[in-house]
C-alpha cells in the first residue's frame, strides 16, 4: 500500500510539472505578440513594459523564463498590472474560504442527494418512485446554471425574502454564512445531483446481476443488507471517480458562473474579472491553481479506489 501511495504522489507531481510547462508555453511562447506587453496591460508605458520584461525574465532563455515565472507564482510575488497592481496569490488565497465553502457545501448536497436518489431509483427500478426521480434528474441536468440561479434569486430573495440576496459572509458568523450560501449551494449542486443519481442507478442495476449478489442472498442476508453492503458498496466506485474529477474541477474554476451570479468573492469571481480584463498573470496563476486541485483530488480518488477495490492495490504492486 505504501508503494502504491508513493507511486501515485510521484505521478501527481509529474503531472503538475507537465501542466506548469504547458501553461507557461501557452501564455508566453505560443502567442506572437510581446508577452511583456500583454502582461503590463492595455495602458502600459514603455517603462512598465521594460520592468515586466525583467521581472518575468523575458530577456533570458526559455528554461530560465519558466523558472523565474514559476518562482514568482509559487512564492506569492506575482502582481497584476491590469487590476490595480494587486498581489495575485494574495487574492487567490483570500478567495479560497469562499470558494471552498461554496464547493464543499455543494459537494455534500450533491453526493448525499445523488446517492440517496440513485439508490431509491435502483431498488425500485421501473416503479413510480424510479420514474419520478428519473424525470427530476433529467430536469436537474437540463437546467442551465444561470437560469436556475436567476429563478432562485427571484423567488427566494426578491419575492418571499427568505434568503439574503448576495455576497459571502465569513464562517465566523455561521448563521449568516449559511443563509448566504444556501442558494448558491443548490444552484451548483442540482446538475450533479441529477447526474450522479443516474450514474449510481445504472451502476447498481448492473451490480445487482452480479453472481456475488446472488451469493449474498443465498446466505440469507436481509434485502437491505444485500443492497447496502454488496450492491451499493460495489456501485460507488464509478461515483468516486466522477466525484474526484468534478470536485477538483469545481474548486479549480467550475464554480465561476455560480460565484459570479451570487457575487461570492471567491476564486471563481476573481477568475471572471481576470478574464474580462485579459489579465494574463492572473489567468496563469488561476490555471495553475485549478490544475493543482484537479490533480490533488484525482490522486485522492486513486487512494479511495484502492480502499474501495482491493484488486487495484494488487494490480499496482504486481506491476
Amino acid at each position, binding site marked *: 500500500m505504501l508503494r502504491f501511495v508513493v507511486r501515485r504522489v510521484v505521478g501527481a507531481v509529474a503531472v503538475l510539472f507537465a501542466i506548469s510547462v504547458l501553461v507557461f508555453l501557452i501564455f508566453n511562447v505560443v502567442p506572437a505578440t510581446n508577452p511583456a506587453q500583454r502582461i503590463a496591460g492595455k495602458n502600459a508605458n514603455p517603462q512598465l513594459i521594460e520592468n515586466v520584461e525583467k521581472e518575468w525574465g523575458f530577456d533570458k532563455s526559455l528554461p530560465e523564463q519558466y523558472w523565474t515565472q514559476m518562482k514568482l507564482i509559487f512564492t506569492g510575488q506575482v502582481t497584476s498590472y491590469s487590476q490595480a497592481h494587486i498581489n495575485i496569490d494574495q487574492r487567490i488565497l483570500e478567495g479560497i474560504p469562499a470558494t471552498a465553502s461554496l464547493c464543499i457545501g455543494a459537494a455534500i448536497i450533491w453526493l448525499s442527494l445523488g446517492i440517496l436518489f440513485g439508490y431509491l431509483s435502483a431498488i425500485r427500478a421501473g416503479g413510480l418512485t424510479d420514474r419520478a426521480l428519473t424525470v427530476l434528474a433529467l430536469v436537474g441536468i437540463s437546467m442551465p446554471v444561470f437560469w436556475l440561479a436567476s429563478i432562485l434569486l427571484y423567488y427566494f430573495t426578491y419575492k418571499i425574502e427568505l434568503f439574503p440576496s448576495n455576497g459571502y459572509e465569513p464562517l465566523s458568523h455561521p448563521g449568516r454564512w449559511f443563509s448566504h450560501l444556501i442558494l448558491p449551494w443548490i444552484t451548483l449542486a442540482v446538475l450533479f445531483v441529477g447526474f450522479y443519481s443516474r450514474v449510481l442507478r445504472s451502476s447498481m442495476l448492473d451490480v445487482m446481476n452480479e453472481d456475488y449478489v446472488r451469493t449474498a442472498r443465498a446466505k440469507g442476508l*436481509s434485502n437491505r443488507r444485500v443492497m447496502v453492503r454488496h450492491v451499493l458498496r460495489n456501485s460507488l466506485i464509478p461515483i468516486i471517480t466522477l466525484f474526484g474529477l468534478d470536485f477538483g474541477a469545481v474548486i479549480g474554476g467550475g464554480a465561476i458562473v455560480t460565484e459570479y451570479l451570487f457575487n461570492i468573492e471567491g476564486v471563481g469571481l476573481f477568475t471572471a474579472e481576470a478574464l474580462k480584463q485579459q489579465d494574463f498573470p492572473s489567468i496563469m496563476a488561476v490555471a495553475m491553481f485549478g490544475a493543482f486541485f484537479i490533480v490533488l483530488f484525482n490522486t485522492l480518488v486513486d487512494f479511495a479506489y484502492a480502499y474501495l477495490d482491493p484488486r487495484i492495490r494488487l494490480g499496482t504492486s504486481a506491476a
Partner: protein
Amino acid sequence: MSVTPETAPVTAGAGGPLLAVENLRVGFATEDGRVQAVDGVNFELEAGEVLAIVGESGSGKSVTAQTIIGLTRSPNSHIEGSVRLRGEELTTQSEAQLQSVRGSQIAMIFQDPMTSLNPVYTVGRQIVEAIRAHHSQVGRKEAHAQAIELLGAVGIPEPERRVDDYPHEFSGGMRQRAMIAMGLALEPSVLIADEPTTALDVTIQAQILRLIQDLNRGRGLATILITHDLGVVAEVADRVLVMYAGKVVEQGTLDDIFYDPQHPYTWGLLGSLTRLDRPRPHRLPQISGAPPSLLRLPSGCAFRPRCPHEFAECKEVPGLLPRLPEDPNHLDRCQLTPEQKRRLREVEGRIGLEEPA
C-alpha cells in the same frame, strides 16, 4: 393441485423426507410471452443423499434449484407447487422467513467461483457475514475464528493467513472451497451445488467433488448436485433426475440411469460421454439439433424433434411413469416399450441415440 399418478412422489422414508419438491412450476413473463422454465418437477431428498439433476443449458435445472430457496422470486416470475423442508412449506413463506432458511438450513454454491464472491471483501469477512446474519449473538472475533476453522475443514492451507485474503488472491479451486466453507458455516442440512465444478479444470474438479462427497458422508449433508456433466454424476450421485425443457424425463438410481437408461434423451447424454473402457468411436456422438425454445415447445413429447425413434404416439404428452414392471422407482417419459428401448439404445455395442444403421 391434485396429485396424479404422474406426479406421485417417490416413496418417502420414515418421518417424511428432508426436502420434498412437489409439482414445482416456475414461469417467467418475458417480452415474448411466458416462459415455463420449470414445468412440474417432483423429487424428494433424504438426509445423507446425493441427488443429481442433469440436463442441458435451459433445461430448468438451475431454476429448480434457485426456486427451492426462493431466489427466483420476482415480479416477473410465477411459482406454483410446493417445496417442503422437514414438512414445512417454503414457497408460501415471506421473504424474511426464507432469509432464515437460506444459508442456515439450505446452503447453495454456484457455478463460477470467480464471480460468486464479492471482490471487495476478504474471504473471511464474507464467511463472518454469513455466520452473523443468522447468529447475531456471535461476536466478530468468534465468527472469525470459526471462519478459519471452516477454511481449514475444506482443505485450504494456512487458513489463519488466508482468511484475510481477498477473493482475487485465491485460485479458482480455492474460491470454490471458500464458497463451500461459507455454505457449511451454519451447518445446513441441505447443500445445493449448482454446477460447482463447471468453471474449474479437471484435476480441481475431482478435488471439489471429493470434498462434496466427504461432507455428504461425514456430516450426512444432503446434496442436490446440478450438472450437465454425467461424469460428475457418476462419481458422487445416489439418484439422478434427467431434465429436458423444464420437465423431468427420467429419474432413477445411479445404476438405473447408467446401466438401464429408458429415455432416448438419456441415451444421447450417455452416448456423448467419452469412455476409456470402450472402443473409441470414430466421432464423439452428439444429440442433433438444439433444445427447443421454451416459448414454442413442440406439441407432445418435447424431445420429439431431436429423437430418431419418434413414432405416432409421441404427439401426445407422455407422463413420467414407472414403465419397467420390475422397478417401480425408475420413471421415464418415453412411450416406447421397454423391449424396444433395449433394442434401440445399443449402437455399435454402446449406449447411444443414433438411428441404427
